[in-house]
């Protein structure tokens, strides 16, 4: 290229129509193209050929194995999972991203702060998919005290179905039978005039409601059944099954009165001192039980990062990243729509929904297809975010083609033959989609 810098002979003006120094022009072209040719040749063309050839050889490249590697892709469980997962990705993500982008694009045309909205939703596009994965891994932690997603779900779930006050509680003696899920039942059958002592332990001091007072063993009720639910525990001892000084009642506990068939006939709530009474009962025998709701656990968290939900978890993170892309591209398409066509439809009395479905969407079709196809390509190559959201223990279940390729070639097994075959598979899947997109943007360029 050095000889290109100063060339006085170029000073001679070229007569129009003629091309002297054609060779010189070619030499210039060669010099301008050479650096690109070197980079493309060594880093793209050569490796592509090499990878295709390599895919027909065994793991260390010493033996030609024909199509064995390709057969292995479709017979190895781990790789089949990867292909299945990628199929899920392909079926779900491009469609959702395009739909979300379309809805956002249409809606933000109606608000005055659309730029702020666009910035918020588009922002994840700037950060790495890897960092996006870290962000969502933090969000997805199972413990609702740590993971924001489960904290949010938990707040809603616990509001709809409130947890019982004493989810950890255990019976203090074997006078209570059954499991907390069934409700802890006072073993001895009860008749009118009896008293049931329902002692519980394993209740942390801070779980006891503030209004709880000293527990009281109630006097029998002549025609009814009385009892008490209390914390049957004293630090450093105390006698199980006996209401003692310093032991507090459990207020607000629902006690069920059950007939011999186990059906609940009446319920009552305990007072501040833990006492309760069914004032009037027919001839027995009955049983009394602390209701199962008392022991109902609070929301314990969806296991997003576990094996069964890991793919949806990664997909959510991925959509969070790409929705902004779809929104911006579709938004640009929307801005370019002929306003008069939309107005004409409205003037003719079409509702907003009709305009959207019958006019906007058909006119946007080319843009929607470009977004959709671009997302298909992106989804086929998805890699970073899977590796950063999925913990090691869930990676087999979260596997996708690009990840399978990397793990096969560089993740310890180092099978370059099989790895090459997976890369070629990915290549073959991407070709038609990218060819479509390139043809599309060549036409418009």
């Amino acid at each position, binding site marked *: 290229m050095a000889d290109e810098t100063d060339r006085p002979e170029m000073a001679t003006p*070229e007569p129009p129509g003629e091309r002297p120094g054609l060779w010189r022009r070619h030499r*210039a072209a060669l010099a*301008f193209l050479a650096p690109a040719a070197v980079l493309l040749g060594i880093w793209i063309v050569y490796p592509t050929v090499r*990878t295709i050839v390599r895919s027909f050889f065994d793991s260390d490249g010493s033996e030609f194995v024909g199509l064995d590697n390709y057969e292995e892709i479709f017979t190895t469980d781990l790789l089949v999972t990867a292909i299945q997962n990628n199929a899920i990705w392909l079926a779900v993500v491009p469609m959702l991203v395009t739909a979300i982008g379309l809805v956002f694009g249409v809606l933000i045309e109606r608000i005055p702060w659309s730029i702020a*909205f666009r910035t918020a939703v588009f922002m994840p596009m700037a950060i790495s998919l890897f960092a996006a994965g870290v962000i969502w891994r933090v969000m997805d932690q199972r413990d609702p005290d740590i993971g924001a997603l489960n904290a949010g779900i938990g707040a809603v779930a616990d509001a709809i179905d409130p947890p019982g006050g004493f989810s950890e509680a255990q019976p203090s003696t074997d006078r209570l039978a059954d499991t907390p899920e069934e409700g802890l039942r006072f073993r001895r059958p009860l008749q009118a005039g009896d008293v049931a002592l329902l002692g519980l332990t394993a209740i942390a001091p801070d779980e006891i409601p503030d209004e709880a007072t000293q527990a009281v063993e109630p006097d029998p009720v002549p025609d009814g059944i009385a009892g008490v639910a209390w914390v049957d525990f004293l630090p450093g001892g105390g006698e199980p099954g006996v209401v003692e000084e310093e032991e507090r009642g459990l207020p607000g506990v629902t006690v069920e009165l059950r007939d011999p068939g186990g059906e609940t006939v009446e319920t009552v709530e305990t007072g501040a001192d833990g006492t309760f009474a069914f004032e009037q009962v027919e001839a027995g025998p009955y049983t009394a039980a602390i209701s199962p709701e008392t022991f109902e656990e609070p929301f314990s968290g969806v296991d997003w990062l576990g094996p069964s939900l890991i793919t949806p978890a990664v997909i959510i993170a991925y959509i969070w990243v790409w929705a902004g892309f779809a929104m911006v591209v579709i938004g640009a398409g929307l801005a370019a729509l002929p306003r008069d066509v939309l107005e004409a439809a409205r003037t003719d009395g079409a509702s907003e929904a009709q305009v959207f479905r019958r006019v906007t969407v058909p006119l946007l079709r080319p843009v929607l297809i470009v977004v959709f196809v671009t997302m298909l390509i992106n989804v086929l*190559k998805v890699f970073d975010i899977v590796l*950063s959201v999925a913990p090691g223990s869930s990676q087999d279940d979260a596997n996708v083609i690009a990840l399978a390729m990397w793990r096969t070639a*560089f993740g310890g097994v180092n099978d370059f033959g099989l790895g090459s075959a997976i890369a070629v598979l990915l290549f073959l899947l*991407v070709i038609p989609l990218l060819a479509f997109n390139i043809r599309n943007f060549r036409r418009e360029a």
Partner: protein
Amino acid sequence: MAGAADHAEPAPSMAAERPEPTSRRLARLAGKAPLNILLAFIALLWLVPTLGLFFTSLLPADLASSQGWWTVFSEPSVATFENYSELLRNDDITSALGVTVIVAIGGTVIPILVGALAAYAFAWLDFPGRDWLFLFVVALLVVPLQMALIPMFSFYNSIGIFDTALSLILFHSAFALPFAIFLLRNFFVGIPRDLLESARIDGASELRIFVRLILPLGLPAIASLAIFQFLWTWNDFLVALTFGRDTQPITVAIFSQFRQFGANIDLIAPAAFVSLVVPLVVFFAFQRYFVQGLLAGSVK
């Protein structure tokens, strides 16, 4: 955008060209309250994850693995920048940030320069087979970089540049070229022929034309491309994971802390946040170019 709001109105109000009475305008705004609330909620939903990472990074190390980020709002506040000063004292992280900067700059400058040279040749120089060659270069867009990982792994090892910033820069440069050449060539073609011809008549060499004329005129396209490529290389994980061992960019350095995600969150969260501050700044500073590049890449 202001005009777009009117189009959302049902047909009857369209007739009114007169200034809208205040009462009507208020009524219309009230009618849009549900939409505004819904979109505000969605925007919040989109912001919370990133903010969550930031707040997590402010949690003291002993709380980070057992508490959600919203505890930074507890009274008195437990928020601290201790994790960040700890991060600056961590040689692995600081050197990784250095590698990231070098790779991102090198991986942006080289392909744009090389791509612009080639694009100029494809746009304004005559040589046999030009159109076919251009088509071939564009066709290289379909090659996923996975196709090059295995051969380049062996190649880098054999020529001894494995695990260097150079190996990452060259890999990124090559894979950026097809799109760079495609985009820039299409842009350069639009430069008025007269400008070039008169420069040639004045005796300027092709290189001089390229430097003095093409590069300045091509700046809008080059800027879009540069922003894209910078973000791409800065954010890369796959290439760096394959070719970096000791020479790790920040993404790979963070990944190597993943073995104990929960226990290392006081390192992972601030490091991840630092890694995304630079792209965010670039994004906010050059949002317009970024969107232009995006549209050029997908629609046009």
